[in-house]
């Protein structure tokens, strides 16, 4: 059965690009335009991996990650932060929130696939 | 009830050479108009009168959801009896992005004319003002008056449009500003 990935990003073009990349590699992809919608979708289905942007209106990425981690079903799910910078602060906050790792934007689609493969196969 | 849609035949030679025209009768005369301005032909029915309009504007009809005014050419040009029977013909025109209908005595044919077949019209007492006449042509036994229907329908005297679209005299119909 195909692995399911949830992409959360307020940019439609990024969502499309990520979705296309992952689908081409055989994953099932769902999209959400912001943290709240992402959280709702995550609760509604069981995802094998969550990719989330940081800066989004309403519920931002870190808040989403924290919220997800408090759900029993997502305690162990890989969650990747899509971030525009790799600063100490980002890493600190990300780790504190419970992220599994991070990927810096702009990223090469191939790198995205490598990371995802590494995390969920 | 007469109802038909015009099929447009486009031949390669038609471009730039032959003109396709629809011929209709009005009183004793035969008029020909550019087929491209003709949307369809219908019968005369269910016209809703509009108060205050000139007598030759019979009113409006519902044409698949659009409100279309109907002009009786026979009344406008004072051509004999204007009767309304199941055989009365209305030509629906598309002129200047508007749809209007004209009541005529009958529709004959679609003809093709080469530009040189249309001779300049002398001043002769046709019902329609020569300003709207492009020329005359011989079709079989009869003489056909080639008319610029768009110019006629948009003229001030037809009272269909707010302003004279071709802006000949530069004068505007009243009402637009004072609304």
């Amino acid at each position: 059965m195909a692995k399911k990935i949830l992409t959360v990003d307020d940019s439609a073009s990024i969502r499309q690009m990520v979705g296309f990349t992952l689908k081409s590699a055989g994953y099932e992809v769902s999209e959400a335009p912001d943290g709240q919608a992402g959280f709702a979708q995550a609760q509604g289905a069981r995802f094998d991996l969550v990719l989330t942007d940081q800066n989004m209106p309403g519920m931002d990425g870190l808040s989403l990650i924290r919220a997800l981690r408090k759900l029993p079903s997502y305690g162990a799910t890989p969650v990747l932060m899509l971030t525009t910078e790799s600063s100490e602060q980002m890493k600190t906050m990300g780790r504190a929130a419970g992220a599994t790792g991070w990927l810096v934007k702009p990223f090469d689609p191939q790198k995205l696939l490598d990371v995802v493969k590494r995390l969920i196969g | 009830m007469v109802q038909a849609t015009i099929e447009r035949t486009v031949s390669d030679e038609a471009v730039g050479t032959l003109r396709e025209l629809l011929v209709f009768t009005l009183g004793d005369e035969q008029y020909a108009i550019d087929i491209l301005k003709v949307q369809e032909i219908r019968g005369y029915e269910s016209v809703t009168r509009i108060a205050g309009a000139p007598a030759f504007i019979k009113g409006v009809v519902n044409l698949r959801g659009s409100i279309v005014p109907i002009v009786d050419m026979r009344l406008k040009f004072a051509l004999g009896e204007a009767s309304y029977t199941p055989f009365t013909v209305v030509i629906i025109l598309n002129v200047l992005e508007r749809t209007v209908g004209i009541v005529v005595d009958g529709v004959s044919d679609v003809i093709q004319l080469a530009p040189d077949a249309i001779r300049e019209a002398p001043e002769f007492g046709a019902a329609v003002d020569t300003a709207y006449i492009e020329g005359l042509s011989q079709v079989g036994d009869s003489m056909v008056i080639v008319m610029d229907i768009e110019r006629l329908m948009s003229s001030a005297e037809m009272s269909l449009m707010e302003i004279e679209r071709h802006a000949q005299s530069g004068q505007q119909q009243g009402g637009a500003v004072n609304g």
Partner: protein
Amino acid sequence: MSIDMSQFHQVFFDETDEHLANMESLLLELDLAAPDEESLNAIFRAAHSIKGGSATFGFSDLAELTHVLENLLDRVRKGTMALTSPMVDAFLHAKDVLGAMLAAHRGHGAAVVGDDVATVRSELEAFAAADDPARQTIPATPVAAAAAEKHTLFIEIDADSGADIPAIIADLGMQGALETVQDAAGDPVRPWVLRLDSPLDVTEASETLSFVLAPESFRITRDLGADESDGFGLFIGAPAAPDPDVAFEEDGFGLFTPLATASTPPEDDSFGLFEPLSTAEAVAAKTTPAAPAAAAHVERGVGGGENSIRVNIEKVDLLLNLVGELVITQSMLVQSGSVLDPVDHERLLNGINLLQRNSRELQEAVMSIRMTPVAFVFNRFPRVVRDMAQKLDKQVELKMVGENTELDKSFIEKLSDPLTHLVRNSLDHGIEAPEVRVAKGKPAQGQLTLRAFHQGGSIVIEVTDDGAGLNRERILAKARERGMAVTDTMSDDEVWGLIFEPGFSTAAAVTDVSGRGVGMDVVKRNILTLGGRVEIDSLPDYGTTIGIHLPLTLAIMDGMSVRIGQETYILPLSFILESLQPVAGDVKSVNGRGRVVNVRGEYLPIVTLAQMFHVPDAKRAPTEAILIIVESAGTRVALMVDDLIGQQQFVVKNLENNYHKVDGLSGATILGDGHVALILDVSTIVRSNQKAAQGLTALAVAEA
């Protein structure tokens, strides 16, 4: 795998357009004295998104400029830099350049000149340079290498842990260099996050904290070295992270080597350390479901975006055409069906009837897709007004009313130019300079209002200013100059109409702002081409209102159908107060001029619609007819009709599309049987009877 990114470009371009527009309107709305935090965040996010997207899709010019902009915006939203008007100007300027870059990438405009970019960059950077970064990074302890072993720990403390966290932080700070990465004071949901460089290792730090905090309310992790080469990284030991023994040393990757938490005493599994699976789950099990908390934290949902989708306009037009074809087809069926015996073919005919209804509903539904809020046209004006007012040294406040009013999409684009010209005119010639206004006793700041509303089968868009008004004398003089036939006795309306003549500009000095008088006649022609009309109202020193009336392609109204003679007419329900059949005693004739009816002591003029609309064979006696009491703009009259037919919803069709405006009618509708019924323009009918109404009622009262 190589993916063709260009397939996403269009979406990115549209997205960026929206971000830029959003940025601009938020910037214009900002109150510089007390800028709204959420607005600042939204502006920052817009720039941030543009940067991210343009970098991803390779538009480096956009990315670089946005990066500079974003840095400034970040400082402003964090409060480390004050926001000034010149800064807003610079931001708007940057937005313009970004817009130009975007247009060039779309293929719509010339490539942006390097000088323009450099100019705006230096503008922005000048602000940045003038303002020293306020944030101090915690200085690394000197001679770190030679000192006692230092650990860099990340400490997360839940805000509701009940303890005096600032005190705890102060204490920790004594141990070494402490940075508050996330300050959660007053925040009910987010935790404090601290970074501590000190000799304390994880165990020692957690022991220290355990004295004052419940173990489940804090988490400590350790960073054994940041790596610079990262495009990607995994927190070792984080939930679902792969086997920590496997080291990643690839370029662009970064990993944190294992934490020292392995040595944590097993029974103390209540710390939320980044341990594999089991601990994380245990921690999760202890905490209450976070959903409500998460929900409370969310400030506002995404505006509208989730309930709408983007559709190419061509698809909508195609859909409309197909529906049109469908309607024609079903008409043909109706036709064919009409010659059939209704009894033999009852089912077929019923089906055709149903089909007719369905296709009409479908047609209306599809047409409504094309209806777009007029806000799309209005939105450019805050910027236009601001720029122009600045240029003209005038103070103007722009108000916009009824932006949600909808009209056909095709009009949106065609309305933009005429409206811009009218606005420019108002600013240029209408609203006076502040000194002039004050001298007249008006407030220095002028008011410009854009208003949109539906009226019958039309949409009306008004541009109103409280300026000098049109100068009647000047207009007449100019008209005479140009040899036009004018008289002093012309009505105001006629005089105002003159300004639509080609080449007519009464501006004393033609400013470059509103042109050489080629404007108004083009405006009028444009509106007439759309099937609309322009109306002017003006009063000296009071102001001017110019109204653009455009036909609505779709409007649905509640109406009452009435019969007059053999004809059916429609009255908009909103005007109707009541209907009655009067008794003879209540109807009075006044001097043979007209009739009034007594309704509960009030005398109302009776308007004989049959007379007004020349309807033959209508009832003459009010006592045999029905009187419908209507009210418009405070005046009441009684409309006389033969009969009431019924009340229902009608789709308003306009007459102007193929015909022209008719006095007394506000449109037409198509009845269930396919016939056209005319909709009465109650407001003008009442108005034209107003004077008569006043005269009549006074007399009637006297006579009564």
